[in-house]
């Protein structure tokens, strides 16, 4: 018995040694190969980056890309330990990273690269910190409503809602049509086991309440003219709570990764989520008929025109690895128009410059709709998401542990505690977005 086991182990080890040595294939290139370690949080783009690796290594045989992606929940932990160890050359970044010194101290200046031509203004602003640009943006994302066309038609909903009351009415109609709310049928589906997805919902709700009333509200917040105890914030939270009443039962216990697939089965009416979910819905069920409309959180129809967007992500180069030249080649290759177009086609994300066009019809509606007024997502307007305090409070609100008033006062309290921490970042944000008021 023991002999068999030891034999088995020996075979396994030999086999694995063989396998590992087999992996080094070359395509006729004999020179030295440097590794380029890339870490990203866009797990949904896996397939694109497999294609990317092949194409890039064809043109740059002296670089071997080691690409890894981890989901959002675990990304920051992993990234920090990699940065500390110096085990990453290029990492996926977002404008919210500018508030954390852990990241800013390791970002390399990318302003000299020849990639910024034709990029949208707001994207350029979001990738800038101080005088230089540190993030090479690859996509733009919006906070949107996905709706199930067939279910809406079956429920007798002929016109899309344009005011808050109409929206609530739509939810009620769906609820009656479905015969009540349960885990596998509901007007709205959401998956909040990991908590962070609630942020995009709050930000989508905010766009037509706070910004509709005062387009410069975040400037006022940044300069201290107002704070989070503003009644507009209370209105946002009340409406978030109302929306959460139409979630499927057990929404807080569902894993976020399962939401897009389950929505595509057609049992739910709507999904209020980030536009990044589009590729997942298409992948799960290509024939699923899905449409979109602006979430009308304002009581006045004419005011519901804001579509919130932000630079969804991009790549930053790690400073001080000695591999910056290769990392920059990675960035420059990625930002080429043909590569970016392929990215937009495969991953259905928003384009960062005019030269890129979305091919998916729904993506077109999201990203280049002339009827929308595009405003920056709350998260990037004035960062308050970093310590995650908003997330916890909203989740408590949804699970019924706190009332709206308590939630708002907790948020206001914590926000004030953090304002000094972000003072430098806020000053920078004001300078970039309101240069005439500085």
């Amino acid at each position, binding site marked *: 018995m023991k002999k068999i086991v030891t034999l088995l182990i020996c075979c396994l080890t030999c086999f694995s040694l063989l396998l590992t040595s087999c992996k080094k294939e070359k395509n006729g290139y004999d020179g030295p190969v440097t590794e380029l370690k890339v870490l990203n949080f866009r797990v949904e783009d896996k397939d694109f980056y497999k294609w990317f690796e092949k194409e890039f290594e064809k043109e740059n045989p002296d670089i071997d890309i080691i690409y*890894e992606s981890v989901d959002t929940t675990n990304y920051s932990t992993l990234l920090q330990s990699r940065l500390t160890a110096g085990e990453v050359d290029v990492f996926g970044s977002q404008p919210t990273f500018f508030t954390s010194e852990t990241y800013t101290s390791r970002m390399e200046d990318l302003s000299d690269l020849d990639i910024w031509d034709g990029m949208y203004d707001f994207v350029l602003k979001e990738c800038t910190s101080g005088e230089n640009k540190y993030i090479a943006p690859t996509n733009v994302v919006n906070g949107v409503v996905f709706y199930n066309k067939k279910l809406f038609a079956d429920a007798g909903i002929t016109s899309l809602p344009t005011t808050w009351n109409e929206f609530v009415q739509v939810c009620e109609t769906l609820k009656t049509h479905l015969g009540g709310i349960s885990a596998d049928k509901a007007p709205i589906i959401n998956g909040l086991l990991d908590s962070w997805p609630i942020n995009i919902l709050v930000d989508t709700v905010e766009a037509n309440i706070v910004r509709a009333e005062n387009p410069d509200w975040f400037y006022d917040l940044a300069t201290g003219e107002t704070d989070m105890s503003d009644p507009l914030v209370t209105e946002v939270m009340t409406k978030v709570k109302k929306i959460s009443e139409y979630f499927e039962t057990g929404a807080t216990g569902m894993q976020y990764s399962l939401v897009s697939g389950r929505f595509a089965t057609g049992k739910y009416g709507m999904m209020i989520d980030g536009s990044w979910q589009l590729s997942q819905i298409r992948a799960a*069920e290509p024939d699923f008929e899905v449409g979109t409309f602006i979430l009308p959180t304002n009581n006045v129809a004419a005011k519901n025109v804001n579509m919130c967007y932000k630079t969804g992500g991009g790549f930053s180069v790690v400073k001080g690895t000695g591999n910056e030249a290769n990392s920059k080649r990675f960035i420059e290759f990625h930002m080429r128009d043909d590569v970016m177009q392929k990215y937009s086609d495969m991953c259905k994300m928003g384009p960062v410059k005019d030269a890129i066009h979305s091919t998916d019809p729904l993506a077109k509606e999201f990203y280049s709709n002339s009827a929308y007024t595009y405003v920056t997502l709350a998260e990037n307007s004035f960062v308050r998401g970093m310590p995650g305090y908003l997330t916890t409070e909203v989740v408590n609100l949804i699970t019924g542990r706190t009332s709206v008033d308590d939630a708002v006062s907790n948020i206001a309290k914590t926000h004030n505690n953090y304002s000094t921490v972000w003072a430098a970042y806020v000053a920078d944000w004001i300078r970039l977005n309101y240069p005439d008021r500085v």
Partner: protein
Amino acid sequence: MEIVKRGRAVTKKRNRRKMTAGDIFSLAMLIVFSAMMLYPLLLIVNIALKSYKEFLLEPLKIVQKIRWENFSEVWEDLDVFHRVWNTIYMAAGACLLGAVIPMLAAFPISRNHFRGAGKVYMFILSSMFFPGSLVASITIAKALHLYNSPIGMIIMWGAGGPAMNVFMMVGFIKSLPRDLDDAAFIDGCSYFRYIIQMALPLLLPIVSTIIVFKAVGVWNDFLSPLIYLPNAKYRTISTGLYMFMGSYTNEWPLLACAIMIIASPMVVLYIFMQRYIIEGMTAGALKG
């Protein structure tokens, strides 16, 4: 042995009579326990064989159409052999260190082979109660260049927590007769050679308990490699699954497949070795 034989004889007699209420109850409880253990595992196997669509639409039914492609899609990304090899050699190293180091200390201490052995023993035992923190450990690991190196990980795993092992061994060695080693030393046998060649075989029950504890600990530990071994080359299987989990959360059947692939070799190995493992632990627990 005798007890077992007697037990068998008694059982044989018992088997002739009818099953008592107690026996039926025991059987029922066994079935309940087994169902509790097996159901979650079978659930995963069921999911692993489904296509994504089938999983979304009919999550709980038994799989209608098995999708074998799941395995091939997952295999390459998992890099199973590489990870398992990493885990095996690191666990082997850790077990070796974890068994040998305490033994080298336990022997002189229990035999009182130098003055002050008792004080040294007290110090070792007190180390069980030292405070520590992750921050401090990471700082020290980096300072000693144990960070991001598999040897460092082996040392940290192997040399960690020796106090308990030393304690168990000291107790065990005290029950071994002294005449053997006295005779050996008088004959001029080298000290360490004696420990390795003569004492080690006698210590096998304790050593196997320690090896099992360490090996299970290393296998289960996905946090330490995550923190101390950022380089993907050195990744162990648990950490590999953790990272894989991150990038495949969208497709549960593939994830379930990965779980099956990772768990199977260990399960197979365990079924072969379980008798030795449990016997070793039993003997160790009895005497310790």
